[in-house]
Structure formats: C-alpha cells, structure tokens
C-alpha cells in the first residue's frame, strides 16, 4: 500500500503542471456540531447522538474560505469547496457557495461521519487528485475531532508541500510566501512552490458573511457528488467517549447575582486576599 501512495504522489496532476494565470483554490470544509451544543452520547458511548446535534462550519475553515476568496479577488481564478461526509454536510457547502465559492464537491458516504483523519484525508485525496489545483486550504484543526492531521496527510497523499498554522498568504507567480504562527506570539515567513497545501489559523482575516444576492446566486452553482473510495481503512477507534473526570474542586458561589457578587468579593478579600 505504501507503494501505492508513492505512485499516487508521482502522478498527482497538481504536481508540475504548467503555471496558468488563473488560480484554482480548493478549500476543505468540515461540518461540526455547533459550539453551544450540549454533548449527548450514543448508547454504546463511542460517539455522539448525531440526531441531537445542530451543525455548523468548522471555525478555521470559514477563515480558510475567506482567504481563498480574497486570493481570487486579487489573482482571479476559481474557488472550489469540498466536504467529505454524509448527506447533512451539503449544508456547509451551500453556505460556502453563498459566501462566494464557485462550485462544490461533496464526497458522500455515511462511513465518513465520525471517521478518523486518515480516512477523511484519503476520501478528500481521491476526490481532489484530478483537480488541477494550485492551492488547497484546510483549517488547522477541527472543533470536534481536533486531530490537526487532515490537511498535512492530504498534502502527503497528493505529493505536494505544505505549511501549517498560517496567518498570511501571498501568491507570487509560481511561489507562495506564507506567515506561519509559532508558539507564544512568534511568527516565521516560509517560501515554497505551488501547488501546495496550507492549514489556516482562525483570525487570519476578517470574515464576511453571505448576502441575499450571494444566497440567490448559490442556487445556480454546481454541487458535484462523488463517491468515497470503496475501501476506507480506519487507523484508530474510539472505545469509549465520556464527560471528562473532574479533578479539581471549584468553590461554586450561588445565590442571586447580587448575593453571589457580594460573597465573591468577600472571599477574594478575606480568603484569597487578592484584592
């Protein structure tokens, strides 16, 4: 199977294709449970009860889309959004089309709900390998899985270079100059050739929202459904999912807001002595 990966790397159509004026940018978008969703587990306690969750676009993916739209405004070209998952993920693709993406690819398969990053990256790679992309943007990590792997694995599968946790993107001809966030407020510029994969950090830009005009225009845009590879080989399995054990005893202060406020001030003055 390793040979297959290497083979794919050589034939990846993105690699070595002639530079054109027009950029093709692909943005990978994941649908995740909404931020204010209260977790409920399935009976086996191995996954959430999906039917109870409301869903939204993974936060950094929204920034990745915005960055792609800005690059398109500057350099021309096309923005294609791609999401892998069951039928429900079409919703985040529609939203992306309303915000300005040109077309969408839905890798549809029920096995992709709750799948690990390897499975998802393989599904995305099989759908994207024939697109003559210049740039693929993903979020740096998902709010639900939090694996921080998919974009980097996708780059490896497609045989293109990558950079992670990106806070600024400049395309100059066939090269890319990106600002990579490091820990503790440090940054670093990285230059690399196109085509490439970047994982985008939240806050890279200011988001714009869909307009009514955009929503109307989106109705005419294409959402192409493609199948996932027949064999999807998971690399990990959740054996148990649970609410984290509490290790620390927080002193909870109750009562009306005024009572709680007075009590807290008293504690901070007399017990903690910090004010």
């Amino acid at each position, binding site marked *: 199977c390793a040979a297959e990966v290497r083979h794919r790397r050589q034939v990846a159509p993105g690699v070595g294709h002639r530079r054109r004026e027009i950029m093709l940018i692909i943005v990978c978008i994941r649908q995740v449970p909404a931020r204010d969703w209260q977790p409920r587990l399935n009976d086996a306690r191995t996954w959430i009860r999906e039917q109870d969750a409301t869903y939204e676009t993974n936060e950094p993916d929204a920034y990745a889309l915005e960055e792609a739209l800005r690059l398109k405004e500057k350099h021309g070209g096309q923005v294609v959004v791609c999401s892998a998952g069951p039928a429900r993920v079409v919703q985040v693709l529609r939203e992306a089309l309303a915000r300005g993406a040109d077309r969408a690819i839905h890798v549809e398969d029920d096995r992709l709900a709750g799948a690990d990053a390897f499975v998802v990256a393989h599904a995305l790679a099989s759908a994207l390998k024939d697109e003559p992309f210049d740039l693929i943007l993903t979020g740096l990590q998902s709010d639900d899985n939090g694996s921080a792997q998919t974009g980097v694995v996708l780059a490896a599968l497609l045989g293109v270079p990558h950079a992670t946790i990106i806070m600024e993107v400049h395309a100059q001809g066939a090269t890319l100059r990106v600002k*990579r966030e490091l820990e503790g407020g440090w940054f*670093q510029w990285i230059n690399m050739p196109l085509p490439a994969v970047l994982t985008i950090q939240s806050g890279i830009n200011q988001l714009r929202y869909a307009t009514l005009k955009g929503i109307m225009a989106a109705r005419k845009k294409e959402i192409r459904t493609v199948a996932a590879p027949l064999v999807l080989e998971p690399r990990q399995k959740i054996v148990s999912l649970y609410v984290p054990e509490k290790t620390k005893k927080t002193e909870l202060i109750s009562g009306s807001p005024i009572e709680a406020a007075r009590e807290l001030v008293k504690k901070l003055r007399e017990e903690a002595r910090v004010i």
Partner: protein
Amino acid sequence: MILVVGEERRGRLNRASWEAIAAAQQLAAGRPLVVAVLGADIRAVALELAAAQVTEVVAIQHAALEPYTPDGYTAALEQAIVQLSPTVVVLPHTYQTRDFAPTIAARMERALVTDVIRLRISGENIAYARPMFQGKLTADVVPLGPAPHFITVQVGAFRADQASRGAVPAPVRSLSVSIDSTAIRQTPEAPFQEARQAVDLSQAQRIVSVGRGIKDAANIAVAQRLAEALGAELAASRPICDAGWLPMERQVGSSGQTVAPKLYLALGISGAIQHLVGMKGSKTIVAINKDPDAPIFEVADYGVVGDLFDIVPALTTALKE
C-alpha cells in the same frame, strides 16, 4: 522498544520534550526506551537528554535539519524509525510536531493519535485518552494497524519533573541519515515577534479576561468597568482578538501571552487547553460562565454559574460598596 522524540530549538531542549519522556517512561514500564533528537548541532542537547532514565540517546545530526522544515524532518525521522523499529513513537504535541508528524505517519501508513492527555494501560492493552469536541468530551482511543503507532502528548498533560533521571548518564549514539537538501521544498526565514506594544500582561497583578460569552464588541465596556473597579488589566481569549474587539497583544494563551497574576477573572471563557496553558499559573482563578460543565471550572478556585451580564455589573457594584 518505545521511541520518544525530543524537540530542540536554537540549541535548547524544550520542556515539552521532558513531558514526552515522562509519558514514554509510563508507557515503557521498564521496557527499552530510546530518546531521539534531531538537529544540525545537537551534541549538548543529546548530553542533556542522557540524564533521563532511558536505554540510549540517539542523536540524528545533519546540516539540512537547521532550520527546521517539515520535509527535512520527515526524511530524517522516517529513516531513523525504519532503522530503530519502535512499537510506539511518542512526540510532544507542539506546533512543530503538528507540522511533520502527520506526514511521517501518512508516508508509513501508520496510526497517529494526537493530543493525548492520559495513558489507559490494562495488561497488554493500551488506550490513549484525548480531548474531543473542544474538551467537552474525552475519548479513549485505540490505534489500529501495524506498529509503530505514533502518539503526541498534550503540552502540560504530563509533568516534566516526573521524568525519571538515571543513576548514570545513558549512552549517546549518533545515527546517520541522508537528506537530499535540494528536495526540501520549504524555505523558512528567521522567526520574529510582531512589534510589541505597551502592554505587558505578564507583569499584571490582576487580570479581567473576556471570552466569546461577551457576544459583542460593545459589551467589552461591561468588563472594562469591572477591570477599573479592580485595578485590573483587560485581556481576552483568542476569538475576541481575532474579531478585532481587543488588540492581539491582550490575547492570553499558547499563541498569545502567558500570565500569572494574583487574580485572573475569566468572563465567558470556555477554558480550551490553548487558553488554559496561558493562565493556569495564576494564583487565584475566578470563572463566570453560564455552562456548569465548561472546562474553565477545572482550573477555577471560585466559580459563579450564570449569565455574565447579570453577575459582572453586580460585582462591579459590590466592589465599590
């Protein structure tokens, strides 16, 4: 054999490396444990690592490993792993590891379990506990497929000071790898900090910090009044700075400032790990949050469960009484 990979930066080993060693020692439970370190000049770092209770230190030295690039590291570490054939590879879950570990795992087609906070060992079976859904849930995860399995451990989850030191220094061996430097596609420049402005939150005695629970830029004033009443600096979680509601320099957390005031008041902050690492050293932590299950209550000394828009003004008034 368990392999743990230390992280060297500008000639120094970071604390996360010792945390990874502590985790790997737990996992090895007496079985052979090798620690590897990569870089262009790592003699000093290798000697430092030799103090750990490990079977041996493997130094992977090559000019093309400085500066760090994912292509260079991937090439070198993949060769080392093939030669050493470990069953598990343990790495710290740093920005650098996030940048190259998935590539190696993908190329070798092996499992990678990231952000591990605990080891669940029962006999021969091992599961790795990791946060999911923004820390609302924890999952016990089992890697599938052939060895080696890769795991990355969350920064701060294992204690560096619990890494056992050996009675005598461990042997240091160098392992040679070949790297074709023309095949490295990324050209990095030197790291830099954005020009720092007047605020140095690390010196603040008291901090009032706002999170997304504040809902709107206009509501920052509510927190501002509390900060004034307390003589505190105003700080924020990342999304508040991302939205431009407060300047970046007031961001607390792994990609912002690390603070340790006498009092840290978290208003409408959920307590994601990237925020916690920046403030959990505070002497007294107070959390005000409407969600009783918010992870911020894991580090808070005092908590008020409720709507911050009711409690914060009441608190401001109570302070003036």
